[in-house]
């Protein structure tokens, strides 16, 4: 075994250990902490697999924001743990373990016996990069070759917002999402929330901009911006806007909306729906991405904030 393999085995072991902790630990709060750690470390695996775009997304959304959502719920649901139903009996657990292990084994087998010739689209993607003028192949796939998936996935995000908002009580409809955070304006938290967000904004926009040619893109940038906004909200320096705010709604549909408009433009004047004219491909895609980064940042932050709870 080479030293690199030793490292890989160690990384896999740490990640799996955290996964086991997350599943096995009796207390929910500890499990969510374990999951955040897991998510952040899985990003290392993605770097090792040479998929930096995914590593960025996993670190930002999978581990970071996703973990924080879970953590917030765990903190709010502490009292519910006692009333929750008891664990299934030992027999059920045994059967579940056997079956899960069989599925995992089947999957492992399927991976190990994948054919040697390894079909790939990587050369085709590289060969067609010229059509968009961007050097990052992942951005090309997301925005051009599989643009439909990306657009629909933005609609999924929007629907999630609708779904979360629809859980508000009728009284709070139109109000501000999430609990009100009040913190000492002279405290350390407020201090950090004054210093970090501007730098975070630069980093977020950099992430978006560099996504054209290097790993990065709208999701990653949006996630950074969202976390900075939330930081300011948690420190009591900002508040979530009321859900009836027209500006907010406009920003939430800007990304998919622009995507749709550009796509329809392609349908009317160009080759096909979502086909970009070669000369304008890069500016068009960047324009969509700028709109999307705003949409994503607002959506992610609002999803973390939750349903409307307070009157505006």
């Amino acid at each position, binding site marked *: 075994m080479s030293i690199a393999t030793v490292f890989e085995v160690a990384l896999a072991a740490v990640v799996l250990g955290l996964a086991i902790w997350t*599943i096995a630990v009796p207390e929910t709060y500890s499990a969510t902490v374990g999951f955040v750690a897991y998510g952040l470390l899985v990003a290392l695996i993605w770097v090792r697999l*040479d998929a930096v775009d*995914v590593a960025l997304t996993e670190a930002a959304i999978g581990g970071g924001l996703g973990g924080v959502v879970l953590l917030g*719920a765990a903190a709010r649901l502490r009292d519910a743990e006692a009333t929750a139903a008891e664990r299934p009996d030992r027999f059920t657990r045994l059967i579940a373990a056997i079956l899960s292990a069989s599925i*995992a084994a089947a999957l*492992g087998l399927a*991976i190990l016996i994948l054919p040697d010739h390894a079909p790939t689209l990587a050369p085709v993607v590289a060969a067609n990069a010229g059509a968009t003028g961007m050097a990052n192949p992942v951005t090309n796939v997301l925005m051009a070759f599989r643009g439909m998936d990306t657009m629909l996935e933005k609609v999924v995000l929007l629907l999630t917002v609708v779904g979360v908002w629809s859980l508000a009580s009728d009284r709070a409809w139109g109000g501000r999402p999430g609990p009100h955070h009040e913190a000492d304006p002279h405290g350390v938290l407020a201090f950090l929330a004054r210093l970090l967000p501007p730098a975070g904004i630069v980093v977020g926009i950099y992430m978006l901009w560099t996504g054209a040619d290097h790993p990065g893109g709208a999701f990653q940038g949006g996630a950074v911006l969202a976390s900075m906004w939330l930081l300011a909200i948690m420190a009591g320096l900002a508040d979530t806007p009321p859900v009836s705010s027209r500006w907010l709604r406009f920003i939430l549909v800007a990304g998919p909306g622009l995507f749709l408009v550009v796509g329809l433009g392609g349908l009317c004047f160009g080759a096909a729906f979502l086909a970009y004219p070669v000369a304008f491909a890069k500016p068009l895609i960047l324009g969509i991405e700028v709109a999307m980064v705003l949409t994503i940042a607002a959506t992610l932050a609002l999803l973390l904030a939750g349903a409307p709870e307070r009157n505006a």
Partner: protein
Amino acid sequence: MSSVSVFGLCAAAAVGLGLYGLITNPQPLRKIVAFNLLGSGVFLLFGIVGRRGAAAGVGNDPVPQALVITGIVVAFSATALAIALLLRLFHAAGSTTLSSRAPTSPRSDPSGG
């Protein structure tokens, strides 16, 4: 063992663990955590597939990468929606159990609809 096999087995194990947790953990929140674990295992599977498909100049097939990014965002949305439902359920019912059979028992509350 190549990195593909190591991480491939890791992905399969994460899937197994996630499934087990999803079945046996009684609290819904733990099920959601387990679902996220399961999801990340499946995403790693895509990563393995993409790594095998690495071509000259590209370390990992970009198509599976793009699929995973989409998948991560969808999984995050699912988590957010499930958590919101769970919190609202806790608020409305005072508990978060999923095992109640009240809605389908023959003599349930007639006011329900």
